[in-house]
């Protein structure tokens, strides 16, 4: 399997997944069913997670397609801009959903404000993702354009990949600032995740899981810093990452670590671990895989120039 193949498999997830999650959220509000609200927020989070490889495989596909004859680079750029706009809103939707899940775990009820924010963000995300999907179709399937319709022009989103690339290359202070922030985000993320997972493995038994669970938003803020800084590098210099085996593995382990974070946030098994308790085997297995996944994310990030061709 190569990147274009992966993109063909994943590219429906952001659009269809957001529509399904939005439908579940609306249904839960109509039925006043908090459990269904929780499921919808979990689906938003998972869709946001899968949107990352969907977007990255799209960037790799663009690099491959641009070399082919009879392919419009303008159409690719328009699709990229639409996908980038949708991806940005998807990250906010996933982040707001995660905050909602975290709050629900702690107080067993939802904040109306949080659900309203997720709802608005999801509608905007779906609008951009739907547009990006349509523009993606135009690249290889011009037959879906309505007959006699004017040729699409202009950007496909509220931001362009070219402007991000120009920003990173024009301002010399930006790249080193992003590097410093990427490290700060990393220790914020890994510091909290390590603490929580070590407790699950049997250390610091005097602390209950719920006490450590309260620290989790700090790790998500760290993840947010790293996603923004990392994405800016990828958009600015895609050729350094897209054929880099180290980057492929880094993203793979990031997916595993992302699912582990959902387990720690919402599942019952870790939440029931009180002070002095031993965590069940399943929780220990997830905790061990979480620590290993983050270590591998860091390792393959550092190995980008050595195992791959970056920098």
């Amino acid at each position: 399997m190569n990147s274009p193949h992966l993109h063909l498999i994943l590219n429906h997830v952001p659009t269809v997944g957001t529509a399904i999650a939005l439908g579940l959220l609306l249904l839960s509000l109509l039925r006043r069913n908090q459990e269904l609200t929780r499921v919808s927020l979990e689906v938003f989070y998972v869709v946001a997670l899968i949107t990352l490889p969907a977007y990255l495989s799209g960037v790799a596909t663009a690099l491959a397609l641009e070399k082919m004859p009879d392919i419009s680079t303008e159409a690719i750029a328009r699709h990229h801009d639409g996908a980038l706009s949708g991806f940005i809103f998807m990250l906010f939707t996933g982040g707001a959903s995660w905050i909602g899940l975290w709050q629900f775990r702690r107080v067993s009820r939802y904040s109306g404000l949080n659900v309203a924010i997720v709802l608005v963000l999801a509608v905007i995300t779906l609008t951009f993702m739907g547009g990006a999907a349509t523009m993606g179709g135009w690249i290889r399937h011009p037959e879906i354009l309505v007959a006699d319709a004017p040729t699409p022009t202009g950007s496909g989103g509220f931001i362009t990949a070219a402007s991000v690339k120009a920003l990173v290359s024009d301002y010399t202070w930006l790249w080193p600032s992003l590097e410093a922030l990427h490290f700060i985000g990393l220790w914020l993320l890994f510091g909290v995740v390590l603490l929580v997972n070590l407790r699950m493995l049997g250390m610091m038994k005097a602390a209950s899981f719920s006490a450590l669970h309260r620290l989790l938003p700090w790790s998500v803020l760290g993840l947010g810093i790293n996603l923004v800084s990392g994405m800016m590098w990828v958009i600015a210099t895609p050729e350094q990452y897209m054929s880099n085996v180290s980057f492929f593995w880094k993203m793979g382990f990031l997916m595993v670590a992302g699912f582990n974070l959902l387990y720690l946030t919402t599942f019952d098994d870790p939440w029931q671990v009180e002070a002095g308790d031993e965590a069940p085997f399943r929780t220990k297995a997830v905790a061990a895989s979480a620590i290993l996944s983050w270590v591998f994310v860091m390792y393959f990030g550092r190995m980008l120039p050595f195992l791959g061709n970056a920098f």
Partner: protein
Amino acid sequence: MNLAVIVSIVVVCVVVVVGVVGFLIDRHAERLER
């Protein structure tokens, strides 16, 4: 301006914003749990 100064200002500003957001989320959680 010196590159190191600009980078330092940018990094400190982002860290302060993230710190404030993290603090507010934590305070909000405490209010909800009370």
